[in-house]
C-alpha cells in the first residue's frame, strides 16, 4: 500500500496542518509516512501545498508528480494540480473558493463548499478539517479518530477548547462527501 496525497490552498487555509495531521495519524497507526511542504517564496494568493506519502514500507521519494489524490482548497491550486492527479485518482474540491469544476472525467470527484460548511459550523478556519473529513470518507487511509488523537497531541493547551469544533468539522466533511457520492451513484 502506498498513497501520495497533495494538499493545496492559499497560505492560511491550514493545508500544512491538514497534511501534518494526516501524517501524525498514519504514523500512530504504524505506517511509514513523509510530509514535505512546498517551501519558498510562494506568491500571496497563490498555491501553498504539501505532499504526504503514506506507505507500508519506508518511503522512497517524498515527492510525487502523479499524486493518487489531491485536496484542492482554491482555484489556483486546481489550475496547478488538476492534470497531475493519477487517472482514477481522487480530487476533493473546495467549491466555495473555486469558480470552475475540473474538466477531467476520469477522477473520483468530491466537490463541496468546504469554506461555507466551516463558516456554518462557526469558524471558517476549520475548513481544512471539513476537507480532510471529506477525503477520508472517500479514501479511509487513516481512521478519523486517529486524526483527532493526533490533533489532541499537537494542539497547545490554550487551543484545546477547539477540539469539539474540529471533530464536528471532520464529521460534517464526511457527511457531505457521503451525500455527494450517493447522489452520483443513484
Amino acid at each position: 500500500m502506498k498513497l501520495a496525497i497533495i494538499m493545496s490552498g492559499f497560505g492560511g487555509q491550514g493545508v500544512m496542518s491538514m497534511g501534518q495531521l494526516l501524517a501524525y495519524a498514519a504514523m500512530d497507526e504504524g505506517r511509514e509516512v513523509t510530509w514535505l511542504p512546498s517551501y519558498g517564496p510562494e506568491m500571496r494568493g497563490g498555491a501553498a501545498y504539501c505532499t504526504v506519502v503514506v506507505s507500508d514500507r519506508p518511503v522512497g521519494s517524498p515527492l510525487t508528480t502523479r499524486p493518487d489524490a489531491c485536496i484542492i482548497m482554491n482555484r489556483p491550486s486546481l489550475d496547478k494540480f488538476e492534470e497531475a492527479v493519477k487517472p482514477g485518482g481522487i480530487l476533493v474540491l473546495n467549491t466555495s473558493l473555486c469558480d470552475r469544476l475540473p474538466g477531467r472525467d476520469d477522477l473520483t470527484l468530491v466537490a463541496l463548499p468546504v469554506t461555507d460548511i466551516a463558516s456554518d459550523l462557526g469558524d471558517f478556519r476549520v475548513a481544512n478539517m471539513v476537507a480532510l473529513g471529506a477525503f477520508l470518507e472517500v479514501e479511509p487511509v487513516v481512521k478519523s479518530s486517529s486524526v483527532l488523537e493526533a490533533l489532541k497531541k499537537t494542539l497547545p493547551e490554550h487551543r484545546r477548547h477547539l477540539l469539539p469544533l474540529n471533530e464536528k468539522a471532520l464529521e460534517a466533511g464526511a457527511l457531505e462527501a457521503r451525500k455527494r457520492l450517493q447522489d452520483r451513484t443513484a
Partner: protein
Amino acid sequence: MKRERVLMKGNEALAEAAVRAGCRYFFGYPITPQNEIPEYMSRRLPEVGGQFVQAESEVAAINMLYGAGGAGARAMTSSSSPGISLKQEGISYMAAAEVPGLIVNMTRGGPGLGGIQPAQSDYHQATRGGGHGDYRTIVFGPATVQEMVDLVGKAFDLADRYRTPVVIVGDGMLGQIMEPVVLPDPVDPDRLPPKPWATTGARGRRPNLINSLHLAAAECEELNRRLEAKYSEIRANEQMAEIVHPGADYFVVAYGTTARICREAVGQAREEGLSVGLLRPITLWPFPTKAFEEALETAKGFLTVEMSLGQMVDDVRLSVGGRAPVRFYGRTGGVVPSAEEVLGEIRRMVEEGDEGR
C-alpha cells in the same frame, strides 16, 4: 521497551539529536532551507544550560565554533550552500589546528546565490576540504531523517576522536521533510572523554595552544604529514555505505535524498526483471571504496545519479578504476529527479551495456 516514534522535521530532528549528543553551543546565521535548526536551538539550548548565538555573519559563526571547539565544548554551526562557502576559511583553520566541531550544510541550488530548492552540488567542496590547504573533513550524506539523527552523535564522536571538523551534508528536502524518527538517549556532556589539549584555563598545568600558523616550512610540512596520517587512518576505518541487492549485475550509485528516489527506481526495475542494486555511500569522505570492491565482484556497470551535473561521479570513476562502465544522470539547480526518470536511465544502462561507457 520500544522507544516512541515521533514525527519531526529533518532540521528540528537534527538539532534535537545534537543536543542529545551533548552539543551545548550553536553559532549560526539565517539562511533557507536550514532556518529551523537555529530556531530550534535558540529555544532548546537555554533549557539545557547551553548557549545559542546568532552571529553577525557566517564568518563570525564559524570562528565562534573554532573558539568553542578549541575550548573543548561540543559545538556546531549550520548553514546552506552560499553560507557554507563563507565558512570555508574557518573550517580550514579548524582542520589545521585540529579542533573538533560539527558543520551542517542543508544544500541548495547554486552556484552563486542560486536558489533555495534541494541540491547536491556542494559535493566537491565538502569532500575536498573546501577551504585552502591540504586537508579533508569527514563528511556524512544521510538519506533519511532517522539516519541523519543517528549520524549526529557519531559525527560528534568522530570529531572528538580524530580532532577534526565533521560535516553533515543534507539538502533542502531532508531539512524540510517530516518523517517518523526515534531519538537517541541523551549524553551528558560532562561525562564525555576528557580533552587534555583544550584551552580550558591553564590552572595547575602548562598552557595549551590552539594555532594554525607555522612559518617554518619544515614545521608546516610536519603538520601536513601528521594530518595526512590521521586521514589515512580515517580512510581505513570510517567508510560507511549500504549495498541494496548485493550480487546484482548493475548498480545505481546515489547518496542522500537522491538515494531514496533511486531506491524506488531500483525496486521498479527489479519488478521488470532487471538485475539492479543500489550502492549508497553514507560517508562521502572517506569515500566508501571498499563497497565498490564488493559490488565489482558482480557489477557490469554503474549509474551515478546526483542532484548536480556530475561531482560524486568522479569518485565513482576513481573507485571503479576502469573495471566497468560508469554512467551519469543528474538534475540540478534545485530540480529533484523523479523515480521514473531514474528508471528510464536504468533501462538504458541495461540495454546498452558497454556502449554507454
